[in-house]
């Protein structure tokens, strides 16, 4: 049990008694939208797989961006060098 900061037996008794009443309060029964444990398990596995796929694809995505950037730079340089010959 918790050791109290500034123990007052009366206060302790009153609060503990009240909290036991709070603990006994009924919680509304779960709505049907609450997932069952098997559904939670499946969802977690699915999320875990997506996360693994996303991590595996990340280097490819980065390379794709680098390819595009490299292509744009190359096109820009080509244009820059070819301008004198075109004029």
């Amino acid at each position, binding site marked *: *049990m918790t*050791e109290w*900061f500034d123990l007052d037996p009366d206060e302790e008794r009153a*609060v503990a008694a009240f*909290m036991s*009443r709070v603990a006994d309060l009924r919680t509304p029964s779960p709505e049907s939208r609450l997932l069952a444990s098997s559904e*939670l*398990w499946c969802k*977690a596995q699915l*999320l875990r797989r997506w996360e693994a796929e996303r991590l595996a694809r990340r280097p490819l995505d980065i390379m794709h961006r680098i390819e595009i950037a490299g292509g744009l730079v190359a096109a820009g340089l080509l244009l820059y060098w070819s301008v004198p010959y075109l004029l």
Partner: protein
Amino acid sequence: MGRLDEASFAAFHARTSPGLRAYVYRVVGHESDADDIVQEAFLRIIRTDVRAESDEHLRRYLYRVASNLIVDRWRRRRHEVGEERILHEPATPRPRYEDDAAVAKIFAELKARDRALLWLAYVEGESHEEIATSLGVGRRGVKVMLFRARRRLRQLLQARGLLVNS
């Protein structure tokens, strides 16, 4: 206990879900938000593939995750509507019995953090250290906050002449 498999998770879920839901619901005060938090906490337990020493250890970890999600919710809502309103945000319990209504109403008048502190200390029987871990605050801070929460509850009970004696 080791790593969770589907069967052990199902048993763990059946054992801890009602208690966790009651805790989150009493602190958050909104049924749908509480359900979202409970589900997310269980999902995170599975996804992190936690290696628990014991069932109790895993249960405490679950409460820690749920408490962090509650704190995240406070922070998100604080950005939306301002800190003062969040701290005094009343819970909206729907008690079944008239007698319960008074108890639920008084508890709902406490600040959300006070509700979490009192629940973890009295209902879950957690130590200051465990509460500190669950709520992400210092151990010394928990002592002070818990003392203040108890004092506020005591004042509420006194104001209504409802000082409950054991």
